[in-house]
């Protein structure tokens, strides 16, 4: 029997005794009215009442303590979010409440463990998914080609910086909006739509498309691929726009180059073949004419060789296999050698060559043959693009402050349009407006730039005005 039950029974017995005693005492007092008996009975009744109160107090105090402990344990569990069993410390009378409570708690604990495990699993999966998403976004953002991803409702899902710049929208504002209102280029919108609506899982197409960027027409290769959901349906489109303007320009330059080079090679070859045939056919009747023909064949062979050498030099410098034989040389000395060679070319066109060579003796450390070639290219260009009667001025000077030797070749020729100036040193590049003024391979200035800048750490520059003339100059560090 539990304390509570015992206490309860004792309380009932005491109350019953108390009530019975009170009844008898009252009855006896009414009948006898005897004093001592009445006093004794009152004492007994008082003791009984005190005992009753004590028993009640002990009983409720025990219950209260057990309840407090349970409540404390439950609070602790709430605070720590750790479910455990409720301990009653022998308060057996609460067992019929505590046992089912503990069963419930055990069940909840199991359930919570399972939920926690599930949550951990979900968190891990979510982290992986989030990391993968960041990874994919980082890849897409790092691509220099413009990338646009749309869903099956043609709404923008993702676009990288290159796409924002190219198409002029702000992704954060354009997200989930129909591409119709985001992309102004009608053709691109149509292509994305078509790919989405006609798309199959293997559907991938590449379209060449021209778009204006900052007012300049540029050519793009647009690769459109379908994004396919696990059920096989097309769930969106990925469009990648690659700027192929430069590639196309280079391809065109190469075509022009091959064409120009073959033309340039065929020209001296034509002379050689023609003069040899003339000799074979006995068309040169006297010894003097025959000698003239031999000289032409010889000089044209040299020209052919120079041309091939030029092409080889530039490709060797570009591929980095060239070795410069650096030695102390004077630019003025090299210029004099060049002018000796170029004089006949100039006088044939009635072009005056003015020399303004520095009187100060200074030297640079450079490869003589390369610098000679660079100066020769500048001087012969100046002569080529200057009309008869013009002047080509060659200057050398030294900038004492910057310790640089400067060489300048100025002409009164065709000049270069402002648009072409940034490209004149590009390999194969030829100024369209001047193509008819003189022939060329588009290699001469490219070689000058390579020799001065790549090989000798100097720099080249040009100032020009169309119709008035050009001034090319280069500078190299002076030897201390």
């Amino acid at each position, binding site marked *: 029997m539990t304390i509570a039950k015992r206490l309860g029974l004792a309380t009932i017995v005491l109350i019953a005794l108390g009530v019975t005693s009170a009844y008898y005492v009252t009855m006896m007092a009414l009948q006898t009215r005897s004093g001592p008996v009445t006093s004794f009975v009152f004492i007994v009744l008082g003791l009984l009442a005190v005992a009753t109160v004590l028993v009640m107090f002990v009983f409720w105090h025990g219950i209260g303590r057990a309840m407090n402990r349970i409540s404390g344990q439950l609070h602790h569990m709430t605070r720590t979010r750790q479910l455990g069993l409720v301990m009653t410390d022998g308060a057996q009378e609460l067992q019929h409440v505590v046992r089912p409570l503990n069963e419930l708690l055990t069940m909840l604990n199991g359930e919570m463990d399972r939920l926690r495990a599930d949550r951990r699993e979900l968190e891990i999966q979510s982290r992986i998914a989030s990391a993968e998403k960041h990874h994919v976004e980082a890849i897409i953002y790092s691509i220099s080609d413009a990338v646009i991803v749309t869903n099956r409702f043609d709404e923008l899902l993702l676009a990288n910086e290159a796409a924002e710049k190219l198409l002029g929208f702000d992704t954060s504002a354009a997200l989930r909006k129909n591409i119709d209102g985001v992309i102004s280029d009608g053709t691109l919108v149509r292509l994305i739509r078509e790919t989405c609506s006609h798309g199959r899982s293997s559907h991938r197409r590449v379209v060449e498309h021209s778009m204006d960027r900052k007012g300049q027409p540029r050519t793009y290769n647009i690769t459109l691929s379908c994004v396919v959901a696990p059920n096989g349906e097309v769930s969106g489109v990925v469009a990648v726009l690659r700027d192929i303007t430069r590639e196309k320009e280079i391809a065109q330059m190469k075509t022009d180059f091959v064409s120009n080079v*073959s033309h340039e090679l065929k020209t001296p070859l034509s002379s050689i*073949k023609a003069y040899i045939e003339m000799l074979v*056919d006995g068309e040169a009747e006297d010894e003097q004419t025959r000698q003239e023909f031999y000289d032409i064949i010889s000089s044209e062979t040299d020209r052919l060789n120079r041309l091939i050498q030029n092409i080889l030099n530039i490709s060797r410098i570009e591929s980095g296999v060239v070795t410069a034989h650096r030695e102390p040389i004077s630019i003025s000395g090299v210029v004099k050698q060049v002018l000796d060679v170029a004089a006949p070319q100039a006088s044939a066109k009635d072009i005056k060559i003015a020399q303004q060579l520095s009187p100060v003796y200074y030297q640079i450390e450079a490869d003589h043959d390369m610098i000679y070639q660079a100066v020769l290219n500048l001087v012969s260009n100046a002569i080529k693009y200057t009309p008869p009667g013009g002047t080509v001025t060659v200057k050398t000077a030294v900038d004492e402050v910057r310790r640089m030797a400067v060489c300048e070749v100025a002409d009164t020729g065709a000049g270069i349009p402002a648009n072409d100036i940034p490209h004149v040193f590009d390999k194969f590049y030829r100024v369209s407006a001047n193509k008819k003024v003189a022939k060329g391979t588009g290699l001469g200035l490219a070689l000058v730039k390579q020799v001065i800048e790549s090989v000798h750490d100097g720099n080249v520059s040009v100032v020009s005005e169309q119709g008035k003339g050009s001034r090319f100059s280069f500078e190299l560090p002076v030897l201390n």
Partner: protein
Amino acid sequence: MSEKILVADDEAHILHVVSMKLANAGYEVVTAMDGEEVVEFCAADRPDLLILDYQMPLLSGTEAAARLREMDHMKDVPAIMLTARGFDIDREDMESARISVELAKPFSPRELLEAVQRLLAGCTHKADVEAL
């Protein structure tokens, strides 16, 4: 009276060798070093045959020929084109310039002379020339 042939090329050596070959064969030769010179000459005179380089300064061979074809007296003058380019010859330009014979550089002066003789003998039509 010998026939007059206008030879145009910006390469002095080619001009020299062609002139000598034709002069040795008894033709009268006049030379030009660019397309504009050709047009200027033909505006005042009428050569019996034209030998033009395809790529020349100021006006190319085909551009010069096209200009000549606009002149009444130059409409039917046979023309030989010397070309040093292979794949980028503009066929339409060649067609409208009415070029009778095309000789690729490096060419043989002997073959050039034969073509000149054939054309001046009267076979001005391209097909006839090629059939020979």
